[in-house]
């Protein structure tokens, strides 16, 4: 089971976003993608929803909580926020929601650009393993994965989800699956 229908997941997300916005009568939201995978997903959603305000991108390297452990991260593209975030409805987009630490860092960075009215979190994949009280509002697909399994988005075209780790999980009962 490694073939994911990403287009269907994206459509699902776009639909949920539209519904939510209609319910809350939100006009002109500002979409922000987190580098790198989140920007790919955000690009697609931005197009599908026909948003007019330009897409923001965040490089959260400087807001990570593991600098004292691993130092600077490998290079990703810089943040780019052409739109003012002050008092805006923000849709924050990432590829996979796992521990929640990336989202924590992204929220901090957004607030350094200004004070948004509200932020809704949209992710392509939500899996368990949260280490912080953070949850997604819009989810492409929920996945039940073992702790040692990793899911990664590759792209930008085509977008693919790659599952790795957790060998022999299919053959073993769940309680053995975390032994690697």
């Amino acid at each position: 089971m490694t073939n994911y229908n990403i287009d269907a997941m994206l459509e699902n997300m776009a639909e949920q976003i539209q519904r939510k916005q209609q319910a809350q009568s939100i006009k002109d939201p500002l979409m922000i993608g987190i580098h790198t995978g989140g920007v790919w997903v955000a690009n697609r959603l931005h197009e599908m929803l026909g948003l007019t305000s330009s897409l923001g991108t965040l490089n959260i390297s400087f807001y990570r909580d593991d600098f004292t452990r691993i130092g600077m991260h490998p290079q990703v593209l810089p943040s780019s926020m052409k739109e003012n975030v002050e008092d805006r409805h923000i849709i924050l987009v990432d590829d996979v929601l796992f521990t929640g630490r990336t989202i924590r860092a992204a929220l901090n960075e957004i607030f350094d650009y200004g004070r948004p009215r509200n932020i809704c979190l949209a992710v392509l994949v939500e899996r368990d393993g949260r280490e912080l009280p953070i949850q997604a509002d819009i989810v492409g697909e929920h996945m039940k994965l073992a702790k040692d399994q990793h899911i990664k988005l590759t792209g930008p075209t085509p977008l693919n989800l790659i599952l790795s780790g957790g060998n022999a999980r299919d053959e073993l009962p769940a309680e053995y699956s975390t032994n690697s």
Partner: protein
Amino acid sequence: MSYRQNIQLTPDKKLKHFLTIEGLSRAILTDILDTAETFVSVGEQAVKKVPILRGKTIVNLFFENSTRTRTTFELAAKRLSADVLNINISVSATSKGESLLDTLRNLEAMQSDMFVVRHSESGAAHFIAQNAPDHISVINAGDGCHAHPTQAMLDMFTIRRHFPSFNQLKVAIVGDILHSRVARSQIHALTTLGVEEVRVIGPKTLIPTDVEPMGVHVYHDLRQGLDDVDVVIMLRLQNERMQGALLPSPQEYFQSYGLTENTLAYARPTAIVMHPGPINRGVEISSKVADGPRSVILEQVTNGIAVRMAVMSMVLGSYAAARGEK
């Protein structure tokens, strides 16, 4: 030479100190430029600050006067959320050696993480790096006539923001090459990054004899030297470093080597004009050129913040990474 460049790198070849460009690979220089690029957006935020060096203590140790370099280092450190201590120490020639080490021991006892050192003696930053404990990184903010690596990197950064690549560029450095640590670091950076040609232009008395083996072409005529170049880097005439009569007068110097609209016309029409500052108007550069459309002098100042943020976070990160792996 009493100092070697390897002291700058950790065993896994990450930047631990930043003392000189000499001996660093193109990959490391490119890494600094790429990292600086990601820090540019911080200056565009409403809150111009990122938390990455929160809780770190950075000491600006200035044994020689400087305004621009010290303030941009200070601003860079503050934008990284580090705590900054500015210490200006005027050196009396007799009390250097021992008092320097004593000063360092005291600052170490205050649990500092980084020294940013400016000193009138060549090799001072190396000396401090050699004598500092393992958890302290040292950045050279200019030592004597030897090196000023962050200035050179901010110049490279500025060039890269104006031209698609380094390998077809002709760059001319004009003026007092002999006393210029900036020029030396620029030459190392430009050749490492693979520009097509580096030229130095100046009177015979201000060109060091050992400059040609560094891979540069020497010109004594400004017009010839500027012919067809993409980047013109003017250097300040360093009166305070001149010993003996190396020059007739500033007026005569301007006649021969001053950059004016007329002499700039020899360079390519797309050429940019740079200067590390402070500028002496009417000595090495005319006001019309310094304030003109081809001048990127103030961009250099802005870029200096992002480049210094990059170097600071890289050197402190390399220690964190080495410790974290254990």
